[in-house]
């Protein structure tokens, strides 16, 4: 049941001719919508970028560990030295 039930004037409006798009424009609008839908679809994993990011992350992590190891080594030696001096 809709809002025009029991109303002849509103019912007459139903008889108005349908409007239609030009075929070319109809296709164009659909293609534009499909392109947006396609663009929004979740892309698969991008393996080259993932591999590069992994290598860089690993290199960064190793560099950080090495840096701390060096610092620890330097301070570690002096602590050992001072400890030996006390004894």
């Amino acid at each position, binding site marked *: 049941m809709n*809002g*025009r039930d029991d109303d002849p004037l509103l019912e007459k409006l139903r008889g108005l001719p*349908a*409007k239609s798009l*030009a075929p070319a424009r109809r296709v164009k609008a*659909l293609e*534009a*919508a499909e392109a947006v839908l396609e663009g929004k679809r979740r892309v698969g994993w991008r393996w080259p970028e993932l591999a590069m990011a992994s290598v860089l992350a690993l290199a960064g992590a190793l560099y950080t560990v090495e840096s701390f190891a060096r610092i620890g080594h330097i301070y570690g030696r002096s602590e050992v030295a001072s400890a030996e001096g006390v004894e």
Partner: protein
Amino acid sequence: MDRAEEAELVARLRKGDKAALRALYASFSDRIFGFLLRLTRRRDVAEDLHQETWVSVARHAERLAEGTDLPAWLFTIARNKHRSWRRWAALDFTRLAFDTDGPEPEGTAARPDAGDELVALEKALEALPVAHREVLLLVGVEGLEAKQAAEVLGIQPEAFRQRLSRARTALAEKLEGPARNDAAVVR
């Protein structure tokens, strides 16, 4: 399209199914265009707004809620596109020049095969303010239920009934003069 088909279409649209978009387009493209053409009274603008409407549909399809009323959703987007265009067009002086010329040749009067009654009805509809025209288009031309039309217009059912009644009276006055004054029966 029954409720089960609509629910299935919503589920497929949420997954980004292109075929579902095509099916929706095939069902509603001309209705949306007709609605926009009768609102704007300009084919070029209606074509642009129609395309923008479908681009928005595609953009938001994945965020559709389950149980979405597709006709109401589509006409809401189309109506919002029209409202947005009207706001911008208010600054466009070329549109003011157009309005003084009346409806473009695309109107019903240009078609010799259209009946006199339909021509008069189309002209009367075109002469109404947008607020009246859109409610009549949604209910009368597109056959939306009162609940759907109220949702599209963003108003409460009671406000919708009043607006429809006023619009209907205004249309009757345009057609037959101010004497006819019987109110619409809306359920």
